Protein backbone atom coordinates (compact mmCIF):
# COMPACT_ATOMS: atom_id res chain seq x y z
CA UNK A 1 0.00 0.00 0.00
CA UNK A 2 1.47 3.30 -1.04
CA UNK A 3 0.22 6.59 0.26
CA UNK A 4 -0.15 9.06 -2.61
CA UNK A 5 1.85 12.27 -2.80
CA UNK A 6 -0.04 15.41 -1.93
CA UNK A 7 -0.96 17.75 -4.82
CA UNK A 8 1.27 20.69 -3.79
CA UNK A 9 4.22 18.33 -3.24
CA UNK A 10 3.71 16.80 -6.67
CA UNK A 11 3.55 20.24 -8.24
CA UNK A 12 6.73 21.21 -6.42
CA UNK A 13 8.56 18.14 -7.70
CA UNK A 14 7.40 18.85 -11.23
CA UNK A 15 8.62 22.46 -11.01
CA UNK A 16 12.03 21.40 -9.67
CA UNK A 17 12.31 18.81 -12.43
CA UNK A 18 11.47 21.38 -15.11
CA UNK A 19 13.93 23.86 -13.64
CA UNK A 20 16.65 21.19 -13.62
CA UNK A 21 15.88 20.26 -17.21
CA UNK A 22 16.15 23.91 -18.31
CA UNK A 23 19.45 24.79 -16.57
CA UNK A 24 21.74 23.48 -19.40
CA UNK A 25 19.87 25.71 -21.88
CA UNK A 26 21.22 28.74 -20.04
CA UNK A 27 24.68 27.73 -21.16
CA UNK A 28 26.37 28.56 -17.84
CA UNK A 29 29.01 25.84 -17.42
CA UNK A 30 29.64 26.61 -13.77
CA UNK A 31 25.94 26.43 -12.90
CA UNK A 32 25.72 23.07 -14.64
CA UNK A 33 28.66 21.62 -12.74
CA UNK A 34 27.30 22.84 -9.44
CA UNK A 35 23.87 21.41 -10.21
CA UNK A 36 25.21 18.01 -11.19
CA UNK A 37 27.15 17.77 -7.98
CA UNK A 38 24.13 18.85 -5.96
CA UNK A 39 21.95 16.23 -7.62
CA UNK A 40 24.46 13.51 -6.78
CA UNK A 41 24.88 14.70 -3.20
CA UNK A 42 21.10 14.97 -2.83
CA UNK A 43 20.69 11.33 -3.80
CA UNK A 44 23.50 10.43 -1.40
CA UNK A 45 21.85 12.30 1.48
CA UNK A 46 18.40 10.89 0.69
CA UNK A 47 19.80 7.38 0.69
CA UNK A 48 21.32 7.91 4.12
CA UNK A 49 18.01 9.20 5.40
CA UNK A 50 16.33 5.84 4.80
CA UNK A 51 18.57 4.56 7.54
CA UNK A 52 18.58 7.59 9.84
CA UNK A 53 15.28 9.35 9.37
CA UNK A 54 13.13 6.32 8.71
CA UNK A 55 14.67 3.52 10.72
CA UNK A 56 16.45 5.65 13.33
CA UNK A 57 19.90 4.07 12.94
CA UNK A 58 22.76 6.52 12.78
CA UNK A 59 25.40 5.40 10.33
CA UNK A 60 28.77 7.06 10.55
CA UNK A 61 30.15 5.14 7.62
CA UNK A 62 27.84 5.84 4.73
CA UNK A 63 30.66 7.14 2.51
CA UNK A 64 31.90 3.54 2.18
CA UNK A 65 29.04 2.53 -0.15
CA UNK A 66 29.37 5.75 -2.12
CA UNK A 67 33.06 5.02 -2.59
CA UNK A 68 32.50 1.35 -3.47
CA UNK A 69 29.98 2.38 -6.15
CA UNK A 70 32.32 5.04 -7.47
CA UNK A 71 35.53 3.01 -7.47
CA UNK A 72 33.88 -0.06 -8.99
CA UNK A 73 32.43 2.02 -11.79
CA UNK A 74 35.76 3.76 -12.35
CA UNK A 75 37.80 0.54 -12.40
CA UNK A 76 35.40 -1.43 -14.59
CA UNK A 77 35.15 1.39 -17.13
CA UNK A 78 38.84 2.16 -17.25
CA UNK A 79 40.89 -0.90 -16.30
CA UNK A 80 38.53 -3.48 -17.80
CA UNK A 81 37.08 -1.44 -20.68
CA UNK A 82 33.55 -2.57 -19.91
CA UNK A 83 30.55 -0.66 -21.31
CA UNK A 84 28.69 1.56 -18.87
CA UNK A 85 25.60 -0.62 -19.18
CA UNK A 86 27.60 -3.30 -17.39
CA UNK A 87 29.79 -1.20 -15.14
CA UNK A 88 27.06 0.88 -13.51
CA UNK A 89 24.74 -1.98 -12.56
CA UNK A 90 27.71 -4.00 -11.32
CA UNK A 91 29.03 -1.11 -9.22
CA UNK A 92 25.60 -0.63 -7.64
CA UNK A 93 25.45 -4.38 -7.04
CA UNK A 94 28.85 -4.26 -5.32
CA UNK A 95 27.70 -1.46 -3.04
CA UNK A 96 24.56 -3.45 -2.26
CA UNK A 97 26.43 -6.67 -1.47
CA UNK A 98 28.87 -4.78 0.74
CA UNK A 99 25.94 -3.18 2.55
CA UNK A 100 24.26 -6.59 3.00
CA UNK A 101 27.41 -7.98 4.57
CA UNK A 102 28.13 -5.01 6.84
CA UNK A 103 24.48 -4.65 7.82
CA UNK A 104 24.46 -8.21 9.07
CA UNK A 105 27.15 -7.31 11.61
CA UNK A 106 25.94 -3.86 12.48
CA UNK A 107 22.29 -4.67 13.07
CA UNK A 108 23.31 -7.01 15.86
CA UNK A 109 23.95 -3.82 17.81
CA UNK A 110 21.96 -0.64 18.29
CA UNK A 111 22.41 3.04 18.93
CA UNK A 112 25.94 4.20 19.68
CA UNK A 113 27.46 0.74 19.16
CA UNK A 114 25.79 0.56 15.78
CA UNK A 115 27.23 3.94 14.80
CA UNK A 116 30.73 2.94 15.91
CA UNK A 117 30.60 -0.30 13.99
CA UNK A 118 29.44 1.34 10.76
CA UNK A 119 32.36 3.73 11.19
CA UNK A 120 34.81 0.87 11.66
CA UNK A 121 33.60 -0.93 8.55
CA UNK A 122 33.80 2.23 6.50
CA UNK A 123 37.38 2.67 7.65
CA UNK A 124 38.10 -0.90 6.58
CA UNK A 125 36.84 0.01 3.11
CA UNK A 126 38.94 3.16 3.22
CA UNK A 127 42.04 1.20 4.27
CA UNK A 128 41.56 -1.31 1.45
CA UNK A 129 41.12 1.46 -1.14
CA UNK A 130 44.16 3.20 0.27
CA UNK A 131 46.47 0.20 0.35
CA UNK A 132 45.39 -1.68 -2.75
CA UNK A 133 47.51 0.50 -4.99
CA UNK A 134 47.56 -1.89 -7.94
CA UNK A 135 43.81 -1.64 -8.31
CA UNK A 136 42.86 1.78 -6.94
CA UNK A 137 46.07 3.80 -7.29
CA UNK A 138 46.01 4.45 -3.53
CA UNK A 139 46.15 7.98 -2.24
CA UNK A 140 47.05 9.41 -5.64
CA UNK A 141 43.43 8.84 -6.55
CA UNK A 142 41.99 6.96 -9.49
CA UNK A 143 42.01 9.64 -12.15
CA UNK A 144 41.34 9.74 -15.86
CA UNK A 145 38.29 7.49 -16.01
CA UNK A 146 37.31 6.39 -19.50
CA UNK A 147 33.97 8.10 -20.04
CA UNK A 148 31.75 6.38 -22.64
CA UNK A 149 31.49 8.36 -25.90
CA UNK A 150 27.78 9.10 -25.59
CA UNK A 151 28.36 10.74 -22.19
CA UNK A 152 31.45 12.66 -23.18
CA UNK A 153 30.58 16.28 -22.71
CA UNK A 154 28.91 18.43 -20.12
CA UNK A 155 25.38 18.36 -21.48
CA UNK A 156 24.95 14.61 -22.06
CA UNK A 157 26.44 13.89 -18.64
CA UNK A 158 24.10 16.44 -17.07
CA UNK A 159 20.97 14.84 -18.49
CA UNK A 160 22.22 11.34 -17.76
CA UNK A 161 22.75 12.32 -14.11
CA UNK A 162 19.37 14.02 -13.98
CA UNK A 163 17.57 10.96 -15.31
CA UNK A 164 19.35 8.49 -13.04
CA UNK A 165 18.98 10.67 -9.95
CA UNK A 166 15.31 11.44 -10.64
CA UNK A 167 14.50 7.78 -11.22
CA UNK A 168 16.40 6.76 -8.08
CA UNK A 169 14.69 9.38 -5.95
CA UNK A 170 11.30 8.32 -7.30
CA UNK A 171 12.11 4.74 -6.38
CA UNK A 172 13.29 5.80 -2.92
CA UNK A 173 10.07 7.75 -2.45
CA UNK A 174 8.02 4.68 -3.30
CA UNK A 175 10.06 2.56 -0.89
CA UNK A 176 9.78 5.05 1.95
CA UNK A 177 6.04 5.50 1.48
CA UNK A 178 5.24 1.82 1.15
CA UNK A 179 4.15 -0.39 4.00
CA UNK A 180 7.84 -1.14 4.49
CA UNK A 181 8.56 2.56 5.12
CA UNK A 182 5.77 2.73 7.67
CA UNK A 183 7.12 -0.28 9.50
CA UNK A 184 10.56 1.33 9.57
CA UNK A 185 9.09 4.39 11.27
CA UNK A 186 7.42 2.10 13.80
CA UNK A 187 10.79 0.48 14.48
CA UNK A 188 12.37 3.91 14.89
CA UNK A 189 9.73 5.13 17.30
CA UNK A 190 9.67 2.09 19.54
CA UNK A 191 11.68 -0.97 18.74
CA UNK A 192 10.33 -3.01 21.60
CA UNK A 193 6.71 -2.39 20.72
CA UNK A 194 7.29 -2.97 17.03
CA UNK A 195 8.82 -6.28 18.05
CA UNK A 196 5.75 -7.14 20.12
CA UNK A 197 3.43 -6.61 17.15
CA UNK A 198 5.43 -9.20 15.32
CA UNK A 199 7.87 -7.09 13.33
CA UNK A 200 11.27 -8.68 12.86
CA UNK A 201 13.04 -5.45 13.80
CA UNK A 202 16.54 -6.63 13.04
CA UNK A 203 15.49 -7.75 9.57
CA UNK A 204 13.79 -4.38 8.97
CA UNK A 205 16.90 -2.46 10.02
CA UNK A 206 19.00 -4.75 7.85
CA UNK A 207 16.80 -4.04 4.84
CA UNK A 208 16.90 -0.29 5.47
CA UNK A 209 20.70 -0.48 5.62
CA UNK A 210 20.86 -2.35 2.32
CA UNK A 211 18.50 0.10 0.60
CA UNK A 212 20.57 3.01 1.89
CA UNK A 213 23.85 1.43 0.79
CA UNK A 214 22.53 0.56 -2.66
CA UNK A 215 21.35 4.08 -3.45
CA UNK A 216 24.57 5.52 -2.06
CA UNK A 217 26.31 3.23 -4.56
CA UNK A 218 24.28 4.77 -7.39
CA UNK A 219 25.26 8.25 -6.22
CA UNK A 220 28.90 7.19 -6.02
CA UNK A 221 28.98 5.67 -9.50
CA UNK A 222 27.54 8.93 -10.89
CA UNK A 223 30.11 10.91 -8.93
CA UNK A 224 32.94 8.93 -10.55
CA UNK A 225 31.59 9.84 -14.00
CA UNK A 226 31.15 13.49 -13.07
CA UNK A 227 34.59 13.96 -11.50
CA UNK A 228 36.15 11.51 -13.92
CA UNK A 229 38.06 10.28 -10.88
CA UNK A 230 37.70 8.80 -7.40
CA UNK A 231 39.80 9.59 -4.36
CA UNK A 232 40.38 7.74 -1.09
CA UNK A 233 39.06 10.81 0.75
CA UNK A 234 35.63 9.93 -0.67
CA UNK A 235 35.60 6.93 1.65
CA UNK A 236 37.06 8.64 4.72
CA UNK A 237 34.89 9.02 7.80
CA UNK A 238 34.78 12.81 7.59
CA UNK A 239 32.91 12.35 4.30
CA UNK A 240 30.35 10.21 6.11
CA UNK A 241 29.99 12.98 8.67
CA UNK A 242 29.50 15.54 5.92
CA UNK A 243 26.56 13.68 4.37
CA UNK A 244 25.13 13.22 7.84
CA UNK A 245 25.23 16.98 8.30
CA UNK A 246 23.44 17.49 4.97
CA UNK A 247 20.70 15.14 6.09
CA UNK A 248 20.38 16.85 9.42
CA UNK A 249 20.51 20.36 7.99
CA UNK A 250 17.65 19.64 5.62
CA UNK A 251 15.62 17.77 8.21
CA UNK A 252 15.70 14.02 8.69
CA UNK A 253 12.01 13.65 9.43
CA UNK A 254 10.90 14.70 5.98
CA UNK A 255 11.52 12.80 2.76
CA UNK A 256 12.93 15.67 0.69
CA UNK A 257 14.65 17.47 3.58
CA UNK A 258 18.07 15.87 3.06
CA UNK A 259 18.07 16.89 -0.63
CA UNK A 260 17.46 20.49 0.42
CA UNK A 261 20.22 20.15 3.00
CA UNK A 262 22.61 18.85 0.35
CA UNK A 263 21.85 21.76 -1.98
CA UNK A 264 22.17 24.40 0.72
CA UNK A 265 25.35 22.98 2.21
CA UNK A 266 27.06 22.55 -1.15
CA UNK A 267 26.27 26.10 -2.23
CA UNK A 268 27.44 27.44 1.11
CA UNK A 269 30.68 25.52 0.69
CA UNK A 270 31.29 26.98 -2.76
CA UNK A 271 30.50 30.49 -1.58
CA UNK A 272 32.61 30.19 1.55
CA UNK A 273 35.59 28.83 -0.33
CA UNK A 274 35.57 31.93 -2.47
CA UNK A 275 36.32 34.10 0.57
CA UNK A 276 38.21 31.98 3.06
CA UNK A 277 39.98 28.65 3.46
CA UNK A 278 38.23 28.08 6.77
CA UNK A 279 35.21 26.18 5.45
CA UNK A 280 35.52 23.54 8.22
CA UNK A 281 34.93 26.21 10.85
CA UNK A 282 31.88 27.48 8.99
CA UNK A 283 30.61 23.91 8.69
CA UNK A 284 31.23 23.36 12.39
CA UNK A 285 29.35 26.56 13.15
CA UNK A 286 26.41 25.49 10.98
CA UNK A 287 26.39 22.16 12.75
CA UNK A 288 26.32 23.82 16.17
CA UNK A 289 23.40 26.01 15.09
CA UNK A 290 21.46 22.98 13.87
CA UNK A 291 22.17 21.01 17.03
CA UNK A 292 21.32 23.77 19.44
CA UNK A 293 18.52 25.59 17.63
CA UNK A 294 17.21 23.64 14.63
CA UNK A 295 16.75 20.01 15.69
CA UNK A 296 14.36 19.36 12.79
CA UNK A 297 16.48 21.10 10.18
CA UNK A 298 15.42 23.63 7.59
CA UNK A 299 12.22 21.77 6.78
CA UNK A 300 11.30 21.83 10.46
CA UNK A 301 12.05 25.54 10.57
CA UNK A 302 9.87 26.21 7.52
CA UNK A 303 7.09 24.22 9.13
CA UNK A 304 7.38 26.25 12.31
CA UNK A 305 7.29 29.56 10.44
CA UNK A 306 4.30 28.39 8.43
CA UNK A 307 2.44 27.30 11.54
CA UNK A 308 3.09 30.63 13.19
CA UNK A 309 1.56 32.55 10.29
CA UNK A 310 -1.39 30.27 9.72
CA UNK A 311 -1.97 30.30 13.47
CA UNK A 312 -2.50 26.54 13.71
CA UNK A 313 -0.85 24.30 16.27
CA UNK A 314 2.45 22.60 15.63
CA UNK A 315 1.31 19.43 13.94
CA UNK A 316 4.01 17.66 12.01
Amino acid at each position, binding site marked *: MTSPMSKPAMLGCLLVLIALAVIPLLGDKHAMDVTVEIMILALFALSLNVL*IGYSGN*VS*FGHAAYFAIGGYTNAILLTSYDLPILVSMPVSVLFAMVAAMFVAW*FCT*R*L*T*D*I*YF*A*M*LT*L*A*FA*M*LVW*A*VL*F*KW*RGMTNGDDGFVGITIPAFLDGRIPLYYFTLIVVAASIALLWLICHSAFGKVLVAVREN*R*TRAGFVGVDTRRMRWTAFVVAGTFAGIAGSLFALFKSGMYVENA*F*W*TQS*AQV*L*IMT*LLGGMYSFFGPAIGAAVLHMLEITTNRYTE*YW*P*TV*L*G*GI*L*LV*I*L*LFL*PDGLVGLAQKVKNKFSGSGGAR
Partner: protein
Amino acid sequence: MQGLEMLSNPTFFVIQLLNSVSMGMNYFIIAAGLSLIFGVLRVINFAHGAFFMFGAYACYTVSSEWGLGFWPAVIAAGIFLAAISVFLERTLFRFLYDKEHLMQLLLTFAIVLIMGDVAKLIWGTDQYSVSYPEGLKGAWNLGVTFYPSYRLVLCGIGPVILLGVWYFTERTRWGRLTKAATQDREMLAALGINVPIIYTSVFLIGSALAGVGGALAAPTNSPVPGMDVFIIVECFVIVIIGGLGSLWGSFLGALIFGLVYNFGSVIFPNGQDVFAYLLLLVVLLIRPWGLFGKPEQA
Protein backbone atom coordinates in the same frame (compact mmCIF):
# COMPACT_ATOMS: atom_id res chain seq x y z
CA MET B 1 56.65 -15.03 2.99
CA GLN B 2 59.80 -13.08 3.48
CA GLY B 3 58.38 -11.43 6.59
CA LEU B 4 57.82 -14.71 8.42
CA GLU B 5 61.45 -15.73 7.89
CA MET B 6 62.58 -12.41 9.28
CA LEU B 7 60.50 -13.00 12.40
CA SER B 8 62.35 -16.23 13.14
CA ASN B 9 65.36 -14.02 13.87
CA PRO B 10 65.08 -13.42 17.65
CA THR B 11 66.57 -9.92 17.54
CA PHE B 12 64.14 -8.81 14.89
CA PHE B 13 61.28 -10.45 16.76
CA VAL B 14 62.12 -8.67 20.01
CA ILE B 15 62.36 -5.32 18.24
CA GLN B 16 58.94 -5.83 16.67
CA LEU B 17 57.53 -6.88 20.02
CA LEU B 18 58.86 -3.76 21.71
CA ASN B 19 57.61 -1.59 18.84
CA SER B 20 54.17 -3.11 19.34
CA VAL B 21 54.14 -2.62 23.09
CA SER B 22 55.46 0.95 23.04
CA MET B 23 52.97 1.93 20.34
CA GLY B 24 50.19 0.14 22.18
CA MET B 25 51.02 1.92 25.44
CA ASN B 26 51.00 5.33 23.78
CA TYR B 27 47.61 4.54 22.24
CA PHE B 28 46.35 3.18 25.52
CA ILE B 29 46.90 6.51 27.26
CA ILE B 30 44.72 8.23 24.67
CA ALA B 31 42.12 5.47 24.46
CA ALA B 32 41.85 5.29 28.26
CA GLY B 33 40.67 8.89 28.30
CA LEU B 34 38.13 8.20 25.57
CA SER B 35 36.87 5.15 27.36
CA LEU B 36 36.67 6.91 30.73
CA ILE B 37 34.56 9.70 29.25
CA PHE B 38 32.29 7.24 27.51
CA GLY B 39 31.94 5.08 30.61
CA VAL B 40 30.61 7.90 32.75
CA LEU B 41 29.16 10.49 30.38
CA ARG B 42 28.00 8.10 27.65
CA VAL B 43 29.43 10.49 25.07
CA ILE B 44 31.52 9.23 22.17
CA ASN B 45 33.94 12.08 21.76
CA PHE B 46 35.23 12.54 18.22
CA ALA B 47 37.06 15.64 19.46
CA HIS B 48 39.32 13.37 21.50
CA GLY B 49 41.54 13.10 18.41
CA ALA B 50 41.70 16.88 18.19
CA PHE B 51 42.66 16.98 21.89
CA PHE B 52 45.45 14.54 21.10
CA MET B 53 46.66 16.76 18.26
CA PHE B 54 46.59 19.85 20.46
CA GLY B 55 48.60 17.94 23.04
CA ALA B 56 51.25 17.12 20.45
CA TYR B 57 51.39 20.72 19.22
CA ALA B 58 51.49 22.08 22.76
CA CYS B 59 54.41 19.76 23.48
CA TYR B 60 56.25 21.19 20.48
CA THR B 61 55.58 24.79 21.53
CA VAL B 62 56.60 24.33 25.15
CA SER B 63 59.59 22.05 24.65
CA SER B 64 61.03 23.28 21.35
CA GLU B 65 59.90 26.88 20.96
CA TRP B 66 60.00 27.94 24.58
CA GLY B 67 62.79 25.53 25.42
CA LEU B 68 61.32 24.46 28.76
CA GLY B 69 62.18 20.81 28.32
CA PHE B 70 60.21 17.76 27.33
CA TRP B 71 58.68 16.55 30.60
CA PRO B 72 57.35 19.98 31.62
CA ALA B 73 55.86 20.14 28.13
CA VAL B 74 54.03 16.85 28.68
CA ILE B 75 52.53 18.16 31.91
CA ALA B 76 51.70 21.48 30.28
CA ALA B 77 49.92 19.65 27.46
CA GLY B 78 47.81 17.80 30.01
CA ILE B 79 46.88 21.01 31.80
CA PHE B 80 46.23 22.81 28.53
CA LEU B 81 43.79 20.16 27.36
CA ALA B 82 42.16 19.96 30.78
CA ALA B 83 41.47 23.70 30.53
CA ILE B 84 40.13 23.46 26.96
CA SER B 85 37.90 20.55 27.88
CA VAL B 86 36.44 22.29 30.92
CA PHE B 87 35.61 25.27 28.76
CA LEU B 88 33.94 23.07 26.12
CA GLU B 89 32.09 21.03 28.70
CA ARG B 90 30.73 24.10 30.45
CA THR B 91 29.70 25.90 27.28
CA LEU B 92 28.56 23.12 24.94
CA PHE B 93 28.49 19.52 26.14
CA ARG B 94 26.39 20.38 29.15
CA PHE B 95 23.35 21.04 26.95
CA LEU B 96 23.49 17.70 25.24
CA TYR B 97 23.61 15.10 27.99
CA ASP B 98 19.88 14.59 27.72
CA LYS B 99 19.70 14.71 23.95
CA GLU B 100 19.99 11.83 21.52
CA HIS B 101 23.36 10.20 20.93
CA LEU B 102 23.36 11.43 17.34
CA MET B 103 23.30 15.02 18.56
CA GLN B 104 26.22 14.39 20.91
CA LEU B 105 28.26 12.67 18.23
CA LEU B 106 27.72 15.52 15.83
CA LEU B 107 28.48 18.15 18.43
CA THR B 108 31.84 16.55 19.03
CA PHE B 109 32.36 16.47 15.27
CA ALA B 110 31.63 20.20 15.06
CA ILE B 111 34.41 20.67 17.61
CA VAL B 112 36.75 18.55 15.47
CA LEU B 113 36.09 20.82 12.49
CA ILE B 114 36.63 24.02 14.42
CA MET B 115 39.66 22.83 16.40
CA GLY B 116 41.31 21.62 13.19
CA ASP B 117 41.10 25.14 11.80
CA VAL B 118 42.22 26.71 15.06
CA ALA B 119 45.30 24.46 15.01
CA LYS B 120 46.06 25.60 11.46
CA LEU B 121 45.65 29.19 12.56
CA ILE B 122 48.06 28.82 15.49
CA TRP B 123 50.61 26.33 14.18
CA GLY B 124 50.19 26.57 10.40
CA THR B 125 50.47 23.54 8.17
CA ASP B 126 54.13 22.65 8.78
CA GLN B 127 55.23 19.34 10.17
CA TYR B 128 57.18 19.87 13.38
CA SER B 129 59.74 17.60 14.92
CA VAL B 130 60.02 17.30 18.67
CA SER B 131 63.32 16.01 19.99
CA TYR B 132 63.55 13.18 22.48
CA PRO B 133 63.92 14.20 26.13
CA GLU B 134 67.41 14.59 27.59
CA GLY B 135 68.90 11.29 28.66
CA LEU B 136 66.53 9.30 26.46
CA LYS B 137 68.02 10.16 23.09
CA GLY B 138 70.00 6.99 22.74
CA ALA B 139 69.35 3.29 22.99
CA TRP B 140 69.68 0.85 25.86
CA ASN B 141 71.34 -2.51 25.63
CA LEU B 142 68.80 -5.24 26.30
CA GLY B 143 71.20 -8.14 25.80
CA VAL B 144 69.65 -9.37 22.57
CA THR B 145 69.51 -5.94 20.98
CA PHE B 146 69.78 -2.21 21.47
CA TYR B 147 66.45 -0.44 21.68
CA PRO B 148 65.54 3.29 21.78
CA SER B 149 65.33 4.26 25.43
CA TYR B 150 62.43 6.66 24.97
CA ARG B 151 60.22 3.90 23.64
CA LEU B 152 61.16 1.66 26.55
CA VAL B 153 60.13 4.40 28.94
CA LEU B 154 56.79 4.64 27.08
CA CYS B 155 56.31 0.91 27.72
CA GLY B 156 56.61 1.71 31.41
CA ILE B 157 54.41 4.81 31.45
CA GLY B 158 51.41 2.90 30.08
CA PRO B 159 51.02 0.54 33.06
CA VAL B 160 51.62 3.42 35.48
CA ILE B 161 48.71 5.32 33.94
CA LEU B 162 46.62 2.17 33.94
CA LEU B 163 47.17 1.73 37.66
CA GLY B 164 46.60 5.41 38.33
CA VAL B 165 43.27 5.52 36.51
CA TRP B 166 42.27 2.21 38.05
CA TYR B 167 43.06 3.50 41.53
CA PHE B 168 41.07 6.68 41.04
CA THR B 169 38.01 5.00 39.57
CA GLU B 170 37.95 1.92 41.81
CA ARG B 171 39.45 2.95 45.12
CA THR B 172 38.46 6.54 45.80
CA ARG B 173 35.29 8.31 46.81
CA TRP B 174 35.42 10.24 43.53
CA GLY B 175 35.47 6.96 41.60
CA ARG B 176 32.44 5.67 43.50
CA LEU B 177 30.59 8.89 42.79
CA THR B 178 31.29 8.64 39.06
CA LYS B 179 29.92 5.10 39.10
CA ALA B 180 26.85 6.29 40.98
CA ALA B 181 26.38 9.07 38.42
CA THR B 182 26.17 6.53 35.60
CA GLN B 183 23.62 4.49 37.55
CA ASP B 184 21.23 7.14 38.75
CA ARG B 185 21.99 10.78 38.30
CA GLU B 186 18.84 12.15 39.92
CA MET B 187 19.28 10.07 43.05
CA LEU B 188 22.86 11.16 43.42
CA ALA B 189 21.87 14.80 43.04
CA ALA B 190 19.08 14.30 45.59
CA LEU B 191 21.67 13.03 48.05
CA GLY B 192 23.39 16.37 47.81
CA ILE B 193 26.20 15.52 45.42
CA ASN B 194 27.13 18.10 42.84
CA VAL B 195 26.69 15.92 39.76
CA PRO B 196 27.73 18.53 37.16
CA ILE B 197 31.09 18.87 38.90
CA ILE B 198 31.58 15.12 38.70
CA TYR B 199 30.84 15.18 35.00
CA THR B 200 33.20 18.07 34.45
CA SER B 201 35.95 16.32 36.38
CA VAL B 202 35.61 13.12 34.36
CA PHE B 203 35.71 15.08 31.14
CA LEU B 204 38.73 17.00 32.37
CA ILE B 205 40.71 13.90 33.32
CA GLY B 206 39.82 12.04 30.11
CA SER B 207 40.84 15.00 27.98
CA ALA B 208 44.05 15.58 29.94
CA LEU B 209 44.97 11.97 29.12
CA ALA B 210 44.48 12.77 25.43
CA GLY B 211 46.76 15.79 25.82
CA VAL B 212 49.44 13.80 27.64
CA GLY B 213 49.15 11.01 25.08
CA GLY B 214 49.61 13.54 22.28
CA ALA B 215 52.63 15.08 23.95
CA LEU B 216 54.24 11.68 24.52
CA ALA B 217 53.60 10.75 20.89
CA ALA B 218 55.13 13.99 19.59
CA PRO B 219 58.77 12.75 19.35
CA THR B 220 57.75 9.66 17.35
CA ASN B 221 54.79 11.05 15.35
CA SER B 222 55.62 14.59 14.33
CA PRO B 223 52.66 16.93 14.90
CA VAL B 224 51.01 17.71 11.57
CA PRO B 225 47.51 18.85 10.51
CA GLY B 226 45.11 15.97 9.99
CA MET B 227 46.64 13.68 12.60
CA ASP B 228 43.49 14.16 14.68
CA VAL B 229 41.10 12.41 12.32
CA PHE B 230 43.39 9.39 11.99
CA ILE B 231 44.16 8.81 15.64
CA ILE B 232 40.51 9.00 16.63
CA VAL B 233 39.37 6.07 14.50
CA GLU B 234 42.32 4.02 15.70
CA CYS B 235 41.31 4.78 19.28
CA PHE B 236 37.75 3.81 18.44
CA VAL B 237 39.03 0.47 17.17
CA ILE B 238 40.91 -0.02 20.45
CA VAL B 239 38.03 0.83 22.73
CA ILE B 240 35.54 -1.19 20.69
CA ILE B 241 37.84 -4.23 20.78
CA GLY B 242 38.28 -3.84 24.51
CA GLY B 243 34.66 -2.97 25.17
CA LEU B 244 33.41 0.62 25.44
CA GLY B 245 33.87 2.03 28.89
CA SER B 246 36.22 -0.67 30.15
CA LEU B 247 39.66 0.46 31.35
CA TRP B 248 41.27 -2.99 31.22
CA GLY B 249 39.58 -3.51 27.89
CA SER B 250 41.30 -0.45 26.44
CA PHE B 251 44.62 -1.65 27.84
CA LEU B 252 44.28 -5.06 26.25
CA GLY B 253 42.79 -3.54 23.08
CA ALA B 254 45.73 -1.16 22.74
CA LEU B 255 48.25 -3.98 23.17
CA ILE B 256 46.48 -6.15 20.62
CA PHE B 257 46.26 -3.19 18.26
CA GLY B 258 50.00 -2.53 18.57
CA LEU B 259 50.84 -6.19 17.97
CA VAL B 260 48.55 -6.59 14.97
CA TYR B 261 49.71 -3.32 13.46
CA ASN B 262 53.43 -4.05 13.73
CA PHE B 263 53.50 -7.77 13.06
CA GLY B 264 50.86 -7.39 10.36
CA SER B 265 52.99 -4.92 8.51
CA VAL B 266 56.02 -7.22 8.69
CA ILE B 267 54.13 -10.15 7.23
CA PHE B 268 52.12 -8.11 4.71
CA PRO B 269 53.93 -4.81 4.13
CA ASN B 270 51.50 -1.90 3.80
CA GLY B 271 48.62 -3.95 5.08
CA GLN B 272 48.68 -2.64 8.65
CA ASP B 273 45.55 -0.49 8.48
CA VAL B 274 43.54 -3.25 6.87
CA PHE B 275 44.65 -5.64 9.61
CA ALA B 276 43.52 -3.42 12.44
CA TYR B 277 40.00 -3.23 11.06
CA LEU B 278 39.89 -6.92 10.22
CA LEU B 279 40.90 -7.67 13.78
CA LEU B 280 38.00 -5.56 14.99
CA LEU B 281 35.68 -7.57 12.80
CA VAL B 282 36.88 -10.87 14.18
CA VAL B 283 36.52 -9.70 17.78
CA LEU B 284 33.02 -8.41 17.16
CA LEU B 285 31.98 -11.66 15.49
CA ILE B 286 32.81 -13.50 18.68
CA ARG B 287 31.92 -10.80 21.20
CA PRO B 288 29.65 -8.07 19.80
CA TRP B 289 30.31 -5.82 22.82
CA GLY B 290 34.07 -6.19 22.83
CA LEU B 291 36.35 -8.29 25.03
CA PHE B 292 35.45 -6.67 28.35
CA GLY B 293 32.21 -4.96 27.36
CA LYS B 294 28.81 -5.65 28.82
CA PRO B 295 25.74 -6.08 26.61
CA GLU B 296 23.83 -2.83 26.32
CA GLN B 297 20.40 -2.55 27.88
CA ALA B 298 17.65 -2.51 25.27
